């Protein structure tokens, strides 16, 4: 055979075409007795969490009653899990954290010191000194 | 002499060569293959039965008749459907890609066809579609190369095909004729799909392959004989 194919998988571009939310499961762990879980208990009883769950139907909310400090666990589709402490937080603060981390991609945060981050080649090509007219070329 | 002057001289030379009108005269070899000699196309592009490659009406009339005006494709495309990649080592346009497209469409269509069972009593059926039939011999053989190959032969579609068998003395299935005929038929579906669009191509499959019941009868025979 003259040509062979080199198997390379296609690259996902979430949001081009369909968008699937990276965060698929949130586990909220709280204690029914401890004072540090006050905020979570309020959140559960005043219906704000219900509203949040209804707004984010694509996320599964798992409420776990367990002794100890409360904790939020976010599961992302790139196999990463983020655990967030929320002891002694008010319900508003916890709601803010829930909203923030449910919109996260699950990747580690990093600083990128360049202007463009892309999986596509530059459209401008690379300048070549060999393709200018001969009389204008640099002579060594 | 500097390098650039060599370059300039070369360019000048090629320019001179371009201005001279030269015609290539190549010796075309007739008879058995000799390494290094180019063979005469008159002799090479001929099938075992003596059909000469080209869009002669003799070559493509069966296919034209089968396609009818409703699904007509151009003569060149018809010839391409009839040409297998083994013919002349692929030097003529051949049907490999058309076959790939056609086979996918036929498989999809037959899968949709067999599960379309609104009156089924099977309680595992979803929305009137009986999925238990998928994977059974009848469903698998319906678009198989055996069924389609025999169908093409019975309808005289494969009487002129441009291909090369490794041994054309053995029977229909072993010589590869069955496979090549099936590929040709699927390539026709692919060509109709490209020319007229998917909807028309599906009508083509329904009208020409299924509505006479011939393909299903062949498939039933195949399945029955195998058991």
């Amino acid at each position, binding site marked *: 055979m003259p040509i062979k194919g080199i198997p390379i998988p296609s690259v996902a571009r979430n949001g081009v075409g*369909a968008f699937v939310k990276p965060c698929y499961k949130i586990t909220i762990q709280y204690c029914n007795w401890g004072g540090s879980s006050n905020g979570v208990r309020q959140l559960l009883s005043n219906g704000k969490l219900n509203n949040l769950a209804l707004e984010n*139907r694509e996320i599964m909310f798992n409420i776990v009653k367990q002794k100890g400090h409360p904790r939020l666990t976010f599961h992302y*589709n790139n196999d990463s899990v983020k655990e967030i402490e929320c002891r002694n937080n008010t319900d508003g603060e916890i709601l803010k954290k829930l909203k923030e981390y449910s919109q996260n991609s699950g990747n580690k945060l990093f600083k990128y010191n360049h202007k463009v981050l892309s999986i596509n080649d530059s459209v401008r090509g690379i300048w070549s000194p060999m393709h200018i007219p001969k009389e204008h070329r640099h002579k060594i | 002499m500097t390098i650039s002057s060599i370059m300039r001289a070369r360019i000048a030379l090629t320019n001179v060569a*371009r201005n001279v009108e030269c015609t290539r005269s190549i010796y075309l070899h007739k008879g058995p293959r000799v390494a290094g000699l180019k063979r005469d196309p008159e002799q090479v592009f001929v099938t075992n039965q003596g059909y000469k490659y080209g869009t002669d009406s003799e070559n493509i009339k069966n296919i034209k008749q089968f396609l009818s005006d409703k699904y007509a494709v151009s003569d060149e495309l018809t010839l391409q459907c009839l040409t297998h990649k083994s013919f002349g080592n692929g030097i003529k346009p051949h049907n490999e890609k058309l076959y790939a497209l056609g086979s996918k469409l036929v498989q999809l269509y037959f899968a949709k066809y067999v599960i379309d069972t609104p009156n089924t009593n099977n309680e595992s059926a979803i929305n009137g579609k009986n999925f238990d039939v998928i994977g059974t011999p009848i469903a698998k053989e319906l678009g198989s190369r055996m069924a389609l190959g025999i169908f093409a032969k019975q309808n005289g579609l494969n009487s002129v095909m441009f291909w090369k068998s490794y041994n054309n003395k053995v029977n229909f299935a072993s010589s590869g004729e069955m496979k090549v005929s099936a590929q040709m038929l699927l390539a026709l579906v692919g060509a109709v799909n490209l020319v007229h669009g998917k909807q028309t191509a599906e009508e083509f499959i329904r009208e020409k392959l299924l509505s006479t019941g011939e393909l299903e009868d062949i498939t039933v025979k195949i399945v029955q004989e195998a058991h």
Partner: protein
Amino acid sequence: MLRQVIKRTAAKNISLVRTSGYVASRSYHVTKFDSRLKTEYQLLTDYSSYKHTIYTHRLPESTAEQCPLLIALHSRLNLPKEYQLSTLSQALNMQQFGSDGLANNFGLSTLGKNLLSYYTCEYLVMQYPRLPMAVHNTAVDAYMGKLTLAEIGKSWGIEVDTVSKLQHFLSQEPEAMKYGRLRFQLEEEKNTVKEDGVYELSQVEMESVDTNNEFIPKEIEAYASAVQAVIGGLYTHVGENATKAFIHDHILSRKLPVDKMFQFSKPTRELVRLCDKLGFTDPVELRLIAETGRLSAHAVYVAGAFVGKEKLGEGVGSSLKEAKTRAVVNALMGYYLYSPIDQDGNEPKLPSEAGYVFEEASVGGGDVAI
């Protein structure tokens, strides 16, 4: 619907059908019934009568509605209301001979695979009509191979059911939760102790190990079949147009590095053959376009592949041979990766779209053998 349109003109050809001799041939194997499924049917062509008797029922919709995993997956994929949760649950069931008698996803996933194959093939044929068949197949694999589909399945947040019945009971998890997970392991496999970093192949996996010592884990296969089955289910509930849109959104929207998929073995010969096929009268010539530093340690040459006055490709290399080969490969890539556009400069419409117009350019002539 399809069946009603077709009017069968009796079985007139039965006597003419001569399949004997062909069927018996060694070069072809006719599919047989899988006896483990205990399939019953009345007539071979009575498709509505087929029934695998080992599957006794489907999951009731009321049970599926109690599973939050299914509801979340349903809205995560933005599936239409008509798409039943029980079908979604069935799509995640790959257990072929499960003890619970639930219908599995084989039919759904086969249908989904057919849909995927067609729409991927159609898209690639229209996008790159001249792609060599080997690369075309690799590209199809890049879009809908098992590894890619498994990656998509994971990105949909599908979880694997690894919880055995005992653990299930001990953790007091609702029964319905299990139906929202990907089920492919047998009960006894779940109970085996797993060591971190050690993976024991199952019997099926051992058989699938190929000559390159590669195999596809059962989990990957299960994820891939689930994705296909979700697509098959979409066709079942809402029809083909919505399914096509789904395939385009989720699978064909991925980036395909098609220019990195070529591995040439004899590019110059191939170019010569290709030019022969295309009927160019002038011979292929490789010419030096520019050079610098021939006598230095870091020479640079620019070569071009020409036919007559037309330049087909150009390559830069640090030796004459390298530059020539790159020029030839560049010429070949320029031909193979040709992608037609319509008169307004847009991507051409696909045959499955309304208002599709045929262009000669979308028929490739096929590859040459060398």
